[in-house]
């Protein structure tokens, strides 16, 4: 892991930081990240699937030289898997041992100590780390349910966690919190208020070309231009699920694997599955529609 670095001093430095991590970001995203770092506030990122929300947290951790702690949300996520759990089998053993030694009356004091505590991501994020406060990524919060959101409120406003048997654990220095949501459910207003908010949009044509140049170096320049233009045209179509940046990268990889030199209707039809993930969408684009879009690109070139 790289040496822990200090936080960027202004918005331009934040932009620079993201660029170092090979993340192509606009000035708007850099501003929000800069503010989140300096105001010590969680960052709530919303956007379509595959626009690089999770990647932001990873890049921050890597470029700042911090540990990344990731909590993947799911329905029914509870304290035991998000924050902490007591190690019951070990506690049982400790009780039996104490009984055998005849010190049973004292055991209740030590049974709920740090020795028997299993730390889960949220608690880990509050503990001191050698490389400075870690980056806590709470991924896909929309998959968790409302009770979990309510629980997060306490954690995110005070950066402390109350364990009834042990007391309150609070962070000396608050972690850098990044929360992502795909909007399969609206995140509650109370949680929004505690966060700095940013809607991660699809990148512009120029940015997406930069992204592909960074992520798929083997891709020819001509093919890259056509590919990105094609994807941008696709996003204007009325699709059920528009392809994200992750899909563009997948598609670029697929095309390099197939040694494609340029986009032809056949190549597009064969590889459409790496770009569109719903049968309705594929059926709509495959064949004549794809050929039409390609012809438009040819005409413009």
């Amino acid at each position, binding site marked *: 892991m790289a040496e822990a670095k200090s936080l960027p001093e202004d*918005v331009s430095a934040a932009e620079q930081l993201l660029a170092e991590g090979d993340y192509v970001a606009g000035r708007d995203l850099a501003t929000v990240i800069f503010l989140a770092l300096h105001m010590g506030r969680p960052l709530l990122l919303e956007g379509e699937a595959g626009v690089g929300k999770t990647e932001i947290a990873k890049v921050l951790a890597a470029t700042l030289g911090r540990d990344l702690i990731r909590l993947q949300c799911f329905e029914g996520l509870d304290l035991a898997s998000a924050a902490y759990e007591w190690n019951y089998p070990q506690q049982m053993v400790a009780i039996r041992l104490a009984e055998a030694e005849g010190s049973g009356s004292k055991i209740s004091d030590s049974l709920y100590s740090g020795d028997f505590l299993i730390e889960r991501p949220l608690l880990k994020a509050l503990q001191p780390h050698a490389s400075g406060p870690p980056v806590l990524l709470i991924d896909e919060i929309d998959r968790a349910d409302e009770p979990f959101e309510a629980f997060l409120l306490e954690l995110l406003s005070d950066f402390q966690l109350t364990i009834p048997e042990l007391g309150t654990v609070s962070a000396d220095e608050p972690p850098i919190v990044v929360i992502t949501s795909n909007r399969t459910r609206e995140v509650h207003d109370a949680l929004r208020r505690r966060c700095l908010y940013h809607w991660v949009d699809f990148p512009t044509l120029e940015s997406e070309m930069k992204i592909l140049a960074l992520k798929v170096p083997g891709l020819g320049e001509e093919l890259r231009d056509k590919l990105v233009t094609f994807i941008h045209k696709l996003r204007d179509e009325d699709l059920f699920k528009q392809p994200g940046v992750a899909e563009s990268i997948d598609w670029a990889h697929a095309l390099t694997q197939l040694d494609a030199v340029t986009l032809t209707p056949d190549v597009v039809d064969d590889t459409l599955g790496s770009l569109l993930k719903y049968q309705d969408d594929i059926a709509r684009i495959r064949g004549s529609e794809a050929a039409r879009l390609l012809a438009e690109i040819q005409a413009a070139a």
Partner: protein
Amino acid sequence: MRETSRIADNILLFCRTLRQAGLPVGPGQVIEASQAILKTGIERRDDFYFGLRAVLVKDPGQSRLFDQAFHVYFRNPRLLERMMGLLLPTLVTEEDGGGGDATVRRLLETLAGEEEPRGDEVVIEVDRSGSYSRSEVLRDKDFEQMSLEEQAAAKVLLRNGLDMLQEIPTRRFRPDRRGRRYDLRRSMQLMLRTNGQLVEVARKTRRCRPPALVLIADISGSMSGYSRMFLHFAHALSSRQQRVHSFVFGTRLTNITRWLAERDVDRALAHVASEVRDWDGGTRIADCLERFNMDWGRRVLSGRAVVIVLSDGLEKDSRARLEVQMQRLRRTADRLIWLNPLLRFDDFEPLASGIKAMLPYVDRFLPAHNINSLVDLGGVLSTGPSTARRHAA
């Protein structure tokens, strides 16, 4: 130093303008906005803009309103004076920035003021295309007070039908003596109380919750007699603990969930009546269902939602498109129930092409012409098969 305080004043006034225009900006956010600007500095206009936006906008629907307000506020000082006039103490009603178009309209109303703009003033170009459309029949509709009879019926409805809604098991647990699973944490605590003797193993069982409901009501001319009653029904449901999303459509789809959250039913419905612009006009069912599938389906149908559509199915759009949209809706919803007021006629046969297109895709097809039939609906929801049709969407 003077400079700084002038900026702080401007941020404060800007926040008040936003609030006036319907964006929920609290005092805490005003302070945060000032802090944010101290950090980003004001050397670059875009940093100033993005800095304020990071703190003040909490929802993608709000960013358009913010953008308009920002450009108007920080470009045109004369407008500022006029807005100062508007900031005189007035009763601000609680509103939120839910729907994008509605909020922009509110901003327009806030900025419009009483007087006509003078000739030498900069003309503010605000894109109104999303807010109004000439081709649509735009009529406001007055809701009368709910009659006593209706009130009584609604209460019966709530008591009888909906308390028995078929519940869905969640992944959370509650203590239960006869539960199947062991609750290790509580067992351990019990052991400590008895000095390490295992007297009783604590058990737990899954918690259940009512399913999420999505109501989609047709408010076109042919449905005018029923839509009001259905809105009462939707409001009664919304005031419960359950997750309910409500939509209405005529020629376009409107999400009315936030307005129905108002406690008082008459105020809630008045709010809906004034915000929805396509009462009693034509219907475009296929278009509206398509908008629902594209824009809202993934956001409100998670967690095994039951979708209830109220419509007579008298559709002018093409049948093929309607079928595609119904198919998609059926695949994403856990259960799809269609309420059709035409069903009260005994000799009703589904002949209209819209009805034929929709019928194959619904799980239940029920009458809905008075409160009683909605009570019946409560019964259906509580007894319907819980077999989750989980098709890949």
